[in-house]
């Protein structure tokens, strides 16, 4: 039932394509403040991908219904498939870089959720984690590239960026953006060195592998680079980078194919290889590349999705995907076998299939330009292994006689699992018979990549002759697959060559580093925390004081003592008492003595108030200090009597230096603050002038407290009452702790 929605969209997209004349756009504002709008630009390239997404999507939904059967979690799978399809449609239609990014990340998220579908399995979880880290990590870099690109172009509309490209071409920032986009595209499209997540993502259910990890999502990177090829085409690094990375990926993936026994993983490596070829096609100069790319994307979707369906059927019906245990399935599974055969014809590029058509276009594209002939030769082994893989998937497991250890309980897949692979695969063959049906479509799409893309004449005989070595080699590889496999599987690659190990290593390193850093900083000892806080305060004060008061003279010049009279001398004496007792506190150890000295400091403060003209403040301060000393002393006495006193901590030179330093810095700051000579006296004058006439109070301090700044007093009263509540809680905690003992 769910398949109706993608099918309706497919029909709509086909109609739109048949009547295609000019791209149509849909824009409405999203975040004008950032210049981001929900913009869609549906041109032939977007429509081409839309057809792919909805067409393959229809088959996937039909297939998944049969594949999942009565699986209790199937609703979850379908929900995420729907989310994925919507995100995919959004991604290829989007015209705004950030809208594209939104959908891009959504596809990554959907992929993550679908790969971890069998989350009971450790392998599935590991694979999902890897896929998430690689694709999201790449996504972050991509976002950076988009930001730089949007900054250069002054717009985040893709069409706008393309139009503005000549303005910023050649700037270093543009090249930086290009490489960011490369990283994003390579992670998504599984290019070296980010390729390893894709084969591991085969832990997902087969419909997911067919849809996300072969036909659509992994082509997003290819789509992105094709879409913005114009912007960077003039950079001499654009083509070569893509050719080197794509070519290496394409070849390396084929070597890795030989190491596998699992049918799905074999197909996955073939997908990686195909994606490499697509990257290479974007990088090739000349107009033929675009045409070949579009044709190959279509051909790949039409053969790889059915082959995954076939693998799913085989798994579903026999319980294994190990090619060593599978043979001669054609008798029990004739429909699946037929689909496999049709898809394999296209994959191998055999004449009269659409894959053949695409392959010819690729050959022509590669031939263009002498420099690239070497790639043409280099791709022969790659094509040969592709042929062999196709043969494995179609011939070996269905027609080849095995050595007897074949699963006994076998049956053909249900109807809904036979139709999708057959439909897609036979379409691949039918289009091969008459490629001119889709020619206009491919040309229109290719023109969106390179405006002068056109259909090239194919010289059939020459092409066929060129393919002979490929087939010959392919047959040899197929025939000696098991022996090759043994050889290749034995080769142990040095681990530094494997990107996967690097990812795992860096995760371990991150965890290790995290534990070192965290245990160093968050060590759990209050004394250390406090020391760090005081050091920070000291650093903030000392460095800035040193910077602002470069020559000491400024400081001295500000620090005027003013008139010397009796009161001033008394204040000075109080200050000396303060300083002496403060220094004494840093060296004394006995708790009682410390308490008494701190009382002495309070006395110093009170005295300084007294002689500075605030006898009421002095009185208050005096009472508070006395009360404090008495209360704390009584507590300490009790503690001493109970014998639970902590031994005094030994003096530490560094802490002593810290205390003295901070004290000195604060003192300096006081001098600097009061000596600036810029302080406005407006407030003091105002308070003095208005206290009696307006606020009806003779004591300015009291008026300040209860009238001018009454709100502060409200806050302080709250603090006082809170202190009661908070202490009550702390006491309750102590009491309960004692009761609990």
């Amino acid at each position, binding site marked *: 039932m769910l398949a109706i929605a993608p099918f309706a969209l497919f029909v709509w997209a086909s109609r739109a394509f048949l009547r295609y004349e000019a791209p149509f756009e849909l824009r409405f504002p999203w975040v004008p403040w950032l210049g981001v709008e929900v913009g869609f630009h549906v041109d032939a390239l977007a429509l081409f991908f839309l057809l792919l997404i909805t067409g393959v999507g229809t088959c996937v939904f039909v297939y998944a219904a049969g594949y999942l059967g009565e699986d209790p979690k199937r609703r979850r799978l379908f929900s995420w498939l729907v989310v994925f399809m919507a995100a995919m449609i959004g991604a290829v239609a989007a015209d705004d870089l950030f809208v594209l*990014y939104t959908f891009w990340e959504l596809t990554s998220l959907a992929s993550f959720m679908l790969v971890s579908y069998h989350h009971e399995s450790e392998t599935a979880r590991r694979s999902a984690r890897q896929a998430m880290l690689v694709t999201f990590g790449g996504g972050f870099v991509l976002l*950076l590239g988009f930001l730089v690109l949007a900054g250069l172009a002054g717009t985040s509309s893709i069409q706008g960026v393309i139009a503005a490209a000549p303005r910023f071409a050649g700037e270093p920032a543009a090249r930086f953006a290009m490489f960011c986009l490369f990283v994003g595209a390579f992670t998504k499209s599984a290019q070296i060195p980010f390729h390893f997540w894709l084969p591991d993502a085969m832990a997902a259910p087969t419909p997911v592998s067919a849809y996300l990890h072969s036909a659509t999502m992994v082509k997003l990177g290819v789509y992105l680079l094709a879409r913005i090829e114009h912007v960077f085409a003039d950079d001499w690094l654009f083509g070569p980078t893509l050719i080197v990375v794509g070519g290496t990926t394409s070849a390396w993936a084929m070597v890795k194919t030989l190491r596998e026994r699992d049918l799905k993983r074999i197909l996955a490596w073939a997908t990686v290889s195909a994606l490499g070829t697509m990257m290479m096609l974007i990088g090739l100069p000349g107009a033929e590349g675009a045409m070949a790319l579009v044709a190959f994307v279509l051909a790949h979707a039409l053969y790889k999705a059915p082959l995954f369906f076939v693998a799913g059927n085989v798994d579903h019906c026999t319980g294994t995907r190990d090619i060593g245990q599978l043979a001669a399935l054609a008798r029990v599974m004739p429909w699946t076998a037929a689909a496999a055969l049709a898809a394999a014809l296209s994959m191998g590029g055999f004449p009269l299939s659409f894959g053949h058509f695409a392959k010819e276009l690729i050959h022509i594209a590669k031939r263009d330009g002498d420099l690239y002939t070497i790639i043409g030769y280099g791709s022969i082994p790659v094509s040969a292994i592709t042929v062999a893989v196709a043969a494995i998937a179609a011939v070996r497991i269905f027609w080849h006689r095995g050595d007897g250890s074949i699963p006994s309980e076998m049956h053909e897949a249900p109807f809904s699992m036979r139709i999708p692979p057959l439909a897609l695969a036979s379409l691949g063959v039918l289009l091969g018979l008459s490629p001119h049906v889709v020619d206009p479509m491919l040309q229109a799409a290719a023109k969106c990549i390179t405006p002068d893309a056109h259909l090239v004449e194919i010289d059939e005989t020459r092409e066929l002759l060129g393919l002979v070595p490929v087939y010959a080699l392919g047959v040899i590889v197929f025939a000696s697959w098991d022996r090759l496999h043994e050889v290749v599987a034995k080769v142990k690659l040095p681990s530094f060559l494997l990107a996967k190990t690097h990812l795992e290593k860096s995760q371990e390193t991150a*965890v290790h580093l995290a534990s070192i850093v965290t245990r160093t900083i968050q060590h*759990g000892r209050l004394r250390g925390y406090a020391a760090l806080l005081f050091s*920070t305060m000291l650093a903030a004060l000392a460095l800035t004081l040193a910077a602002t008061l470069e020559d000491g003279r400024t400081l001295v010049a500000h620090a005027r003592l003013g008139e010397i009279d009796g009161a001033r001398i008394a204040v000075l004496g109080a200050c000396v008492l303060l300083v002496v007792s403060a220094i004494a506190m840093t060296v004394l150890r006995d708790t009682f003595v410390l308490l008494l000295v701190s009382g002495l400091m309070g006395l110093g403060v009170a005295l300084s108030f007294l002689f500075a003209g605030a006898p009421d403040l002095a009185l208050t301060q005096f009472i508070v200090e006395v009360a404090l000393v008495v209360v704390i002393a009584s507590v300490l006495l009790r503690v001493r009597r109970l014998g639970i006193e902590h031994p005094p901590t030994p003096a530490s030179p560094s802490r002593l230096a810290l205390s003295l330093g901070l004290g000195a810095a604060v003192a300096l700051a006081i001098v600097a603050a009061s000596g600036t000579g810029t302080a406005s006296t407006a407030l003091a004058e105002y308070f003095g002038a208005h206290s009696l006439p307006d606020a009806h109070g003779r004591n300015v301090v009291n008026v300040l407290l209860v009238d001018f700044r009454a709100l*502060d007093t409200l806050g302080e009263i709250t603090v006082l009452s809170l202190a009661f509540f908070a202490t009550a809680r702390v006491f309750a905690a*102590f009491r309960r702790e004692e009761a609990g003992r």
Partner: protein
Amino acid sequence: MISLLLTAPFLLPLATALLTVLVPSGGARKGVAFGGALASLLVAACLVAEVASEGVLRVAIGGWEAPFGIELVADALSAAMVLITALVALLALLFQESDADPAETSGYFHPLFFVLIAGVGGTFVTGDLFNLYVWFEVMLLSALGLLAFGGRVRNLDATVKYFVLNATGTLAFLFAVAFLYAATGQLNFAALAEASRPDDAARWLPFVSLLLVAFLVKAGAFPVFSWLPASYPVLPAPVLALFAGLLTKVGVYALLRTAAHVFPTAPVIFFEILGWLSVFTMIVGALGAIYHYDVRRILAFHIVSQVGYMLFGIALHTQGAQVATAFYVLHHIAAKSNLFLLAAVVARTAGSYDLRRIGGLYAARPGLALLFLVSALSMVGVPPLSGFWAKLMLLREGIAEGRYVWTAAALLTGFLTLFSMMKIWFAAFLEAHPAGVDAPKPLARATPAYAAIACFATVTIALGLFPEPVLEFLARAFGASDPTEALASLAEGAR
């Protein structure tokens, strides 16, 4: 009318606190509490509407005009902060009604809770440096009372660490206020701004730096964040959500206010240092999250790293970055408070906060899993959730200002955050429960918990889908792109 709107952010919670002390029965106390929280939310909404239509609101307390008396000022930033505070308070109270790690109910809970809210609210509307200090003190004391709540040794240990470090930070604040008053003779924000003209600004640098340290302590920034991971994990869930959402953000708010409006002309070196501190805050916080296994500790370290992002925005010191920071703060409050509530439900359902001892929740509670994903991915910065825009704007400003290293650190932090969020996702949701399939136990009173969580998630999604009105509103607080212009307009209002 305006004076009512401006005093309500602290007077309403204070009145509620007083009432909850006076009301004898538990049921009535709850009623009063919900009434107070709802009223606060309504008044906060009115305040936002009023600021949106009338612009900056000012009230001189007791009729003593600024700069002589205490002035309350509400611009768009204040109004938005007051609104989100009221929302967090209401939802935390709602969550308290569930049985997922609530605070123990005693006569002390509601008064302390509401005084804390009053302190936070006062911070956001005051236009006076010393008054700001008073509200900091109010918050400090009520936080202390709430921390001591659990009544176990670990609570006391956390309380002592919290108190010593925060009290020291607050003391530094007091010193800085005294220095600044001595140097300028002013306490009013606008008057201070006027006094610190660019040619003179360098001389205030030591005092402003001390202020910076005080705010950094409150915000939980490198290197003075140690109190945060040391104390937060002992709190009961609703209180933890409140602390995590609001308290560090008060420090960030104070910094943003200071940097944008009070001392916008501070020397470049000030912002340079702040920027590097932000880099360390981001990275060290993210590493701490990777190291731990207790969900609450992971999330507490995430706060640190996210505060780093906000400091990054303040350090860039452009109008765009300031708007981005303000948006980041709003997004963060909604998402982070929610993550702690979610963690409580996870712990209550699966049996522990320790990731090594839980699992199986994706199968058992798919709804909870989705809600967790929304908040967690928003933290990572995945579009189209609120965190995406916050991060996007910061990165954009970072690139535009040529701060490539800081920007790269922000990107790396996003990746590390993803890594540690996935750790929670895998261990709590995907992996099987070590005690078997039936281990997850249902909550007895699940509705309040899920309602609170769903509300927060809605805010996160709404901010992500419709950021424009919020951004436009916030931008008014940082109206002029030239900081001196903003200063002039502020100073003019003060005259």
